[in-house]
């Protein structure tokens, strides 16, 4: 089990304040503009040490246990723009864990320290036009030329892609094929041959910029390789566990907030002579969501305890990602439904929540990919 102490409560209050002041205060404007100032927001979170909570203090990290990461995730999940929460989570738990675990000291000094401080914005470049769920199908190729990699190819769906200072790029560095012969490389976006070909216009997560990146004879030092050449796929699979957990932590905060706000609205909204919340049909749906939320929260605690104990959390992360996404979609549907017309207009939060949460069943490994992983972990058949 995990234990919550005074410092955990203090940290939660800190992140809640930051979310209110640095995100929520401007969220409507940034959602409408279709972008947010990542350097400004990341600096605010970086200055208090929220972007490298578990990392080595030598690189500006907090050296803390994973429990704080869960609290961070839950609290950014309460933000009124999940797109900005996702952008932050990319920085803290998707683009940097491999560099922290496997990178050389020089590489960490140059790229991790400023990311933790919020001075550099990072992105994670895995997905390609023809390789999303099937990561092993990716084609972007790095060929060695002396001390440099020459990289050609493209990446699609890259969060923070327009604002990033560097990308943690997964590429092929040999012709072995499949999951063999891949490497992770830190690619500065100032590299010659790097370009952003387009910004994607999305259903939701509208404040977050998502880009297609093109690499044309892009040269990057071989010393920018994270860890071992050829171990990129395995390192990335490891990094995906952090990505999936932070996704699930966020949904605890997001669903909890949505549940509170929906119940509050239904208390005040009358129809047929009584508050809408007085209807059992509505109460039961919200009660069921609340029950699932409690189970998810406790499952996350178990994952945190396993993580803190150094155990493999693949199964925890897979279950958490799958069920948190499904719960978020159920909550979003209930929020829109019970708000009626008020839930369908842009003036109110449910519409954005509905669009934003829909991503959870697609990004970071779709629901079916989670099920595929589970079916393989458990002797179910596959």
């Amino acid at each position, binding site marked *: 089990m995990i234990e919550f102490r*005074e*410092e955990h409560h203090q*940290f939660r*209050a*800190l992140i809640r*304040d930051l979310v209110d002041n640095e995100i929520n205060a401007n969220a409507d404007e940034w959602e409408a503009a279709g972008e947010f100032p990542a350097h400004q927001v990341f600096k605010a979170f970086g200055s*208090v040490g929220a972007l490298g909570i578990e990392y080595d203090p030598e690189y500006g990290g907090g050296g803390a246990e994973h429990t704080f990461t869960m609290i961070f995730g839950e609290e950014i999940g309460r933000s009124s723009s999940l797109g900005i929460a996702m952008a932050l989570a990319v920085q803290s738990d998707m683009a940097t864990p491999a560099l922290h675990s496997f990178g050389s000291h020089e590489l960490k000094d140059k790229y991790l320290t400023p990311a933790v401080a919020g001075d550099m914005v990072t992105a994670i470049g895995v997905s390609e036009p023809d390789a999303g769920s099937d990561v092993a199908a990716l084609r972007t190729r790095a060929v060695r030329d002396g001390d440099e990699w020459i990289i050609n190819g493209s990446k699609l769906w890259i969060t923070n892609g327009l604002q990033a200072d560097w990308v943690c790029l997964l590429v092929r560095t040999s012709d072995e094929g499949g999951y063999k012969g891949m490497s992770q490389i830190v690619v500065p976006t100032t590299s010659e041959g790097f370009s952003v070909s387009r910004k994607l216009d999305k259903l939701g997560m509208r404040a977050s910029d998502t880009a297609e990146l093109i690499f044309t004879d892009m040269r990057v030092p071989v010393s920018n390789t994270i860890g071992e050449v050829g171990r990129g796929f395995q390192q990335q699979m490891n990094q995906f566990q952090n990505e999936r957990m932070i996704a699930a932590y966020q949904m605890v905060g997001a669903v909890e907030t949505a549940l509170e706000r929906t119940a509050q609205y239904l208390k005040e909204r009358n129809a047929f002579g009584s508050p809408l919340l007085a209807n059992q049909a509505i109460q039961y749906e919200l009660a069921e969501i609340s029950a699932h939320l409690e189970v998810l929260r406790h499952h996350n605690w178990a994952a945190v305890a396993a993580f803190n104990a150094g155990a493999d959390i693949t199964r925890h992360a897979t279950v958490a990602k799958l069920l948190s996404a499904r719960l978020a979609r159920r909550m979003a549907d209930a929020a829109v439904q019970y708000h009626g017309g008020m839930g369908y207009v842009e003036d109110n939060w449910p519409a954005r929540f509905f669009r934003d949460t829909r991503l959870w069943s697609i990004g970071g490994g779709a629901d079916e990919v989670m099920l595929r992983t589970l079916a393989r972990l458990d002797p179910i058949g596959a």
Partner: protein
Amino acid sequence: MNVVVCVKQIPDPADPGALDPNTKTLKRDGKLILDESDSYGVEMALQLVDAAGSGEVTLVSMAPNGEVSGLRTALAMGAAKAVLVSDDALAGSDALGTSKVLAKAIARAGEADLILTATESSDGYTGTVPEQIAELLQLPSVTFAKEIAVDGSTLKVQRQTEAGYDEVECPLPAVVSVTAGVVEPRYPSFKGIMAAKSKPVDQVTIADLGIDAASVGWAGAGQEIVEIAQAEAREAGTIIEDDGEAFAQVVKFLDDLKVV
């Protein structure tokens, strides 16, 4: 430069609980947090110590049940240590009773060049404690500070007024109340939160401070809360239709409020 800041730990305004119908006071048995009004004093103290290049910020608080969470927040912002007075005999203390306790606690906190307070707490609003502390300590009292500078042993304060501000000078040490909102309180950092765990909180009772139980709490209170009543519901606002001249009405409204 050593600065003492009096900080109150209050029920979370987001979840304020209730008034006790018997004692007619706010129930304070739940978790307490740092009164936001006090975060400005803490910030100002940290800035003054920084500017002086040496010294430290010490917190002084009186709270039930040995409550420290509000203190930890201010320690995480950068204060060095705290004195906490917690004693069952303090329940029911009025403003003067509170001031007596805080004055003794300030003396216990060590040599102070400056004592900062908020102008009033967010849950009590008597707004009299800072001046009473100054009187009890026989120190100059300056109120409603919006800016504080130290020049040798002289304190220079911009004291907020309706029209602007007065420039006030007095010798140090002094007791100064700080107006809410005049500085941007820093966020405590993750490292600050972890460091705050091991910063010393000197928890004392009234006996430790040499205070007679009969002079504080219900026993010593000269003030009595005779009645509590529901605040009147706020009146509906006025809607001004803009016919191109609405600004004149808005300006008049703000002018009547004396905010422009």
